[in-house]
């Protein structure tokens, strides 16, 4: 019968029965397994999508690879679990995945009641609207009476309700569980409007039958700080996942790239030496539970933050998203990493 109930039941059952094994640390578990189980999207081009032979790529996927590289020195030691917006939290809670790297908004509810931990924001986003150009709509404030397609289990459906209520607009929500279903319904004209994170809209527009017939409205109606999430209660693991992001940003800050990382090891700059773990008697990696050259391994695997961004969703990709808020703090954005020291 309902697959939905089944997944939930299994989730509940896993919580009830499985379990005792989780007494070890997540890092220990991952090392023992020999791979990282990473929760990603079911397929959002640029963020996480499988190609024809099942190889995953994307911005979020590179985070999975970076974590695996930091632990194993090998970015291929990852197994991916595609999760819908709704399934992602049970998957993380039940221990089915070790980390969720899946355009997930950091909210207080998820950080507390759902039992997760968030810290680094790897993409500062906000919610937007996409419409058909033929509707001649120029602003979201003209959308009263529209049918709006939205995916359930997201902050998106909550922001949507709040925005229309605050602006006294009527709308008719058309809510689906799976991304493909929302896409198909919007493409078939079931809705006038598609709403989700702006980054998602850029990606989804490319999958529509005629991308040029659609436009993204200027309004951004929410703050969507997206970042990796882990279960509460394992500070070491939380630190590792957080510092993988800070290493990526730090590398961009230092100008360390996938191409020049070996070169940079010879740098005379003590900050860079410490960052790359070549300082004498350093404990910069072992304190995290990793090797001292963990940052080198990450950069060799995926490059620095800027490279990851450009390759997957920025100028080097079909999505062509501007860095905007996600530029380094020194370049007018707000991406900022604490010092490695």
């Amino acid at each position, binding site marked *: *019968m*309902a697959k*939905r*109930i089944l997944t*939930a*039941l299994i*989730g*509940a059952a896993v*919580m*009830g*029965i499985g*379990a005792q094994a*989780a007494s070890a640390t997540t890092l220990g578990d991952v090392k023992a397994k020999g791979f990282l189980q990473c929760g990603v999207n079911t397929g959002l081009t640029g963020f996480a999508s499988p190609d024809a032979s099942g190889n995953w790529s994307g911005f979020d996927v590179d985070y999975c690879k970076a974590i695996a590289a930091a632990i194993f020195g090998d970015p291929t030691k990852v197994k991916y679990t595609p999760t819908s*917006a*709704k399934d992602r*939290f*049970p998957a993380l*809670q039940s221990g089915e995945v070790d980390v969720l790297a899946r355009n997930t908004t950091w909210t207080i*509810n998820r950080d*507390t*009641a*759902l*039992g997760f931990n968030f810290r680094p924001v790897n993409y500062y986003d906000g919610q937007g609207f996409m419409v058909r150009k033929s*509707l001649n709509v120029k602003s979201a404030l003209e*959308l*009263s*009476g*529209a*049918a709006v397609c939205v995916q*359930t*289990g997201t902050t998106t*459906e*909550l922001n*949507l*309700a*709040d925005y*229309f*209520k605050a602006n006294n607009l009527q*709308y*008719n*929500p*058309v*809510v*689906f*569980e*799976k991304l493909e*279903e929302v896409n*198909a*319904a919007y493409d*078939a*004209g*079931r809705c*006038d409007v598609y709403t989700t994170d702006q980054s998602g809209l850029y990606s989804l527009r490319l999958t529509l039958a005629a991308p040029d017939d659609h436009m993204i409205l200027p309004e951004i109606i929410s703050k969507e700080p997206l970042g990796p999430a882990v*279960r*509460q*209660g394992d500070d070491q693991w939380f630190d590792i996942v957080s510092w993988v992001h800070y290493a990526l940003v730090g590398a961009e800050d230092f100008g360390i790239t996938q191409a020049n990382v070996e070169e940079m090891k010879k740098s005379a700059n003590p900050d860079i030496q410490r960052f790359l773990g070549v300082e004498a008697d350093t404990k910069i990696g072992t304190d995290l539970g990793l090797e001292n050259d963990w940052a080198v391994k990450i950069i060799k695997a995926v490059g620095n933050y800027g490279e990851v961004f450009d390759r997957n969703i920025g100028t080097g990709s079909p999505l062509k998203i501007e860095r905007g808020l996600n530029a380094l703090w020194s370049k007018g954005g707000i991406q900022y990493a604490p010092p490695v020291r």
Partner: protein
Amino acid sequence: MSIDATTPSGKDKPAGSILNDPKIRGIIYQAVTLLLLVAFIYWVAMNTSENLKRANIASGYGFLNGRAGFDVGQSLIAYSSDSTYGRALVVGFFNTILVAVAGIITATIIGFLVGIGRLSKNWLIAKLSMVYVEVFRNIPPLLVIFFWYSGVLAVLPQPKESVALPLNMYINNRGLAFPKPIFDSGSQFILLALVIAVIGSILFSRYANKKQAETGQRMPVLWTVLGLLIGLPLLTYFATGMPISFDVPVAGKFNLTGGSVVGPEFLSLFLALSFYTASFIAEIVRAGIRGVSHGQSEAAHALGVRPGLTTRLVVVPQAMRIIIPPLTSQYLNLTKNSSLAIAIGYSDLVSTGGTILNQTGQAIEIVSIWIVVYLTLSLSTSLIMNWFNAKMALVER
């Protein structure tokens, strides 16, 4: 015990070895099983609560009073994002009931028609009915739902090209829009008139039956009942100065505004469940009719009863006894299959519950509510059908 002692086996039993007593052994087995079961449930419960604590997830049903914050596409009761989670669940519950009841009624009608059609002497009707059954019975219900949903969406026009139907109704890919009645003061009398008409109809048909039994005379029951049911409310409507007005759908910027709308999600789920379940009901009906011994209708014919009457008064009442029990399980299936609604975005209990589960993380609580609700729905359906079955059972003389 006293009986046991007098039976030969009781006498022969070697004293002392209680374990050989099948009765005592039975009790021991049952006690051990019960103990194991209780221990297992206890272990699961303890483990669950411990794991929930470890995962820092709160438990309990208090969250149901929280503000839902999300909107629902279709609701039979007043609901907004300011309503509580509890109310959102009730909205989903009513939507489940709506599609289940509508589906059960339609599936029964189609199922009976097709089932009787399969026994028809008309070659075309019999073959068409057979094809219907074989096609729908052999496709998974989810596919049938997708078929209707994409079919419905593909065929229906965009809102700008809405097709106008009689009575100010319109259909487009946003659903079927129809005038919404607005009840002004005075309309309660119309409801009253309807109630009186229903009671009057029941009394009249009882009287007519009695009269026929006594005198053999038949009264025009159908026409009288129809006249009562339609005429009386209509008369009251005019007498009270036409207190019901209609909010008619009109073209708006994006879609028609005003009136009531039944969305394509409901339409396709309803059609899919009805057509799918009808194929099973058709087979049950066919089996039921076949199950009535041929001698019965031959006897009726021999007594000079016309074929139509034979079917209605002799065959069908007996067939019903065979049909009702499996019919019940089809009704239960339809109700449970309605939870596939989520695939096409119809806001049923599973869909709204799932959203709440996701927003609050209260998986165990929501799943328990699902289980209790579906169990209650199934048990009530069974109860009603059992009552109906008892009523239909042959009165043995």
